[in-house]
């Protein structure tokens, strides 16, 4: 048996190391919203021959296209992020770009999103998240006949959500990574995954408490964690294998989505034994003290 619960301060330190920079970044510059939220246009093109970025920039100047950022993928592929532009303007822009190479341009992606839909998406995702949290809280509380388990599981879940959002705030600041619909999906999945592991551990604790009701909770937890640690790690490894494959080989469109899921998986696995369980223990200790008085 490993005395996991003797090192609670280590877990607090570890979580803080990840959470503090993330939360600081979230407060100071938030996340970088994609056009899914702000509205605007994205155009991704591939030309048949390499074109210098300076030529592209002069076309943008000539056509007076409100391009916010130009992202160069390789010598002949570009992504343009634009504010509110009309369909005709985009059409003119594409034609002008075609003139520079004198060959047809392959349009890989051309999205325009109105500003109303963006705020609606944010609102709806938040409602969905709230629903999921309430449903999970109720289910865990019901399954373990204990509101403390439910709340501890949800606190661990909030921890994981903050880790995912915090890291994407940092990614946004350093690499310009945007938060889009796919990210919202990853964030909602992280929530369910986080609780998945917590339940497996709580289930074990419940079983041992039934078997030896007089043993100190800390000991019960240590036994439960020691026995579930192997399975938690093995299981997370399998999911991490799948996601790493997606991150490395899945192509540009799903890369950051897979990264979000990957971070969610890692923090979800970590938070079950090292966030949810210590909280359950501390809570029980506080309650015990009260009763003794």
């Amino acid at each position, binding site marked *: 048996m490993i005395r996991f619960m003797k090192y609670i301060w280590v877990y607090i330190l570890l979580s803080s190391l990840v959470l503090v920079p993330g939360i600081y970044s979230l407060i100071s510059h938030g996340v970088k919203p994609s056009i899914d939220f702000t509205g605007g246009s994205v155009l*991704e093109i591939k030309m048949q021959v390499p074109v210098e970025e300076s030529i592209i920039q002069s076309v943008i100047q000539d056509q007076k296209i409100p391009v916010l950022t130009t992202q160069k993928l390789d010598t002949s592929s570009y992504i343009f992020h634009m504010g509110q532009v009309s*369909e*005709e303007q985009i059409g003119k822009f594409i034609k002008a770009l075609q003139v520079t190479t004198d060959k047809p341009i*392959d*349009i*890989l*992606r*051309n*999205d*325009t*999103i*109105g500003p*109303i*839909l963006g705020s609606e998406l944010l609102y*709806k*995702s938040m*409602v*969905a998240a709230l*629903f*999921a949290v309430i*449903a*999970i809280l109720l*289910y865990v509380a019901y*399954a373990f006949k204990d509101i403390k388990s439910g709340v501890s599981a949800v606190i661990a879940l909030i921890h994981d959500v903050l880790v995912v959002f915090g890291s994407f705030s940092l990614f946004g600041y350093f690499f310009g990574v945007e938060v889009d*619909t*796919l990210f*919202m*999906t990853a964030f*909602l*999945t992280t*929530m*369910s*995954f986080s*609780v*998945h*592991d917590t*339940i*497996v551990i709580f*289930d074990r604790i419940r*079983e041992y408490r039934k078997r030896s009701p007089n043993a100190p909770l800390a000991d019960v937890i240590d036994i439960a964690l020691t026995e579930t640690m192997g*399975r938690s790690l*093995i*299981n997370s*490894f*399998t*999911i991490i*294998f*799948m*996601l*790493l*494959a*997606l991150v*490395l080989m*899945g*192509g540009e*469109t*799903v890369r950051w*989505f*897979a990264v979000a*899921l990957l971070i969610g998986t890692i923090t979800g696995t970590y938070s079950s034994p090292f966030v949810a369980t210590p909280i359950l223990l501390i809570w029980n200790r506080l309650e015990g003290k009260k009763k003794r008085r």
Partner: protein
Amino acid sequence: MKQTKKTFGILVVLALVLVFFDLPQAPSIDTTLFGVHIKKDFTTRLGLDLAGGTQLTLEADMETIPSGDRKDSLESAKQVIERRVNFFGVSEPVIQSAMSGENYRIIVELPGVTNTDEAIALVGQTAQLDFREYTNDPLATDSGFIIPTLENTSAVGITGRDLKKSLLQFNSQTGEPEVGIQFTPEGTKKFGDVTKRLINKPLAIFLDNVLVTAPRVSSEITDGQAVITGSFTVDSAKQLSIQLNAGALPVPVKIVEKRTIGATLGADSVTKSIRAGVIGLGLVAAFMIVQYGWLGLLADIALFMYGLITLFLYRFIPVTLTLPGIAGFILSIGMAVDSNILIFSRYREELRRGKPWKIAMELGFGKAWESIRDANFTTIITSIILFNPGNWSFLPTSGLVRGFAATLFLGVVTSLFTGIVVTRTLIRMFYRGPKV
């Protein structure tokens, strides 16, 4: 043991049937069985982000429509757009109406269409045709030719509703494209009366309150045939005739969202995701064998069965596969082996306590079940909320999110079956205990 053999037999037959339906060149059923005609294609449906194409979200301007009629107007607008798209000849379009609070929307998915200007012009235009005459004849006031506007003209009472059909044709003298129209019997009579009254006077034709042409009527037209000329290109004349045939939209619409994915990017995503999936799957399978030996191999066979069942379900239901959907599938493979990992680690614990392996195995299945059930239940709850089966307007209705939720849900439910029933049967049939 007899029972196990029977279950195993059923599973083998099931696997063979599934392999048939999961073949790359999708089979289709078209037979009559017990008097019921069954026709079904078993192809994998790809979403626009994988197949390439355009998705448009149109929002209807319902300001002038009484609130009781708004739902009906949205439905009929949807039908008009559906007809236009069908006349235009897009294969397998999807047109849905969606209400979100006080917003009335129509979502149009056009696979293979990447020319968005054309698509927007086709579905976004109201196409309200209106025949008008001058309120004060300029000839009478002798002020020469005045360009007809909405202000100086009045409707003669002929609109797009009086048309029977319209078609693209070419002027016999100039060769210019023009739109030929034919009136309904009632429209023919109205048109005859109007042309009789307006001989030697101009008759202006407006489309969506914009002047198209204003020819001078030379004689009474009684056969109900007419042409609309103007500076048409072949494309714009064809488009107008489609719109006239499909009818005008009952409400004006505007585009609030447009997403276009080129076919090359979509195909690229499919190849890369499949490759990533296969490699990840191989790693997981190898990892299971390293960890659990023969048991791991049996779990891998169950995982293969899992793949067969999910692919069949995608084709059967059918689930439209999107990029997040593939990610959901890949994620659920990772989760699918979790049940087996839980069971196997329980089994090892029981072995360590000195139980004979057969009893330890049955105990492992029994004890792991509770946590497998509880843990998967939360994932099922989340995927149902994300999928939003009630189509509630306060939850996400985005196709991407739903595609992900659908594959995650199917994955978790299938994994409960393969991880427990299939693995248990395989172990009872083939596993001969750990090496001593």
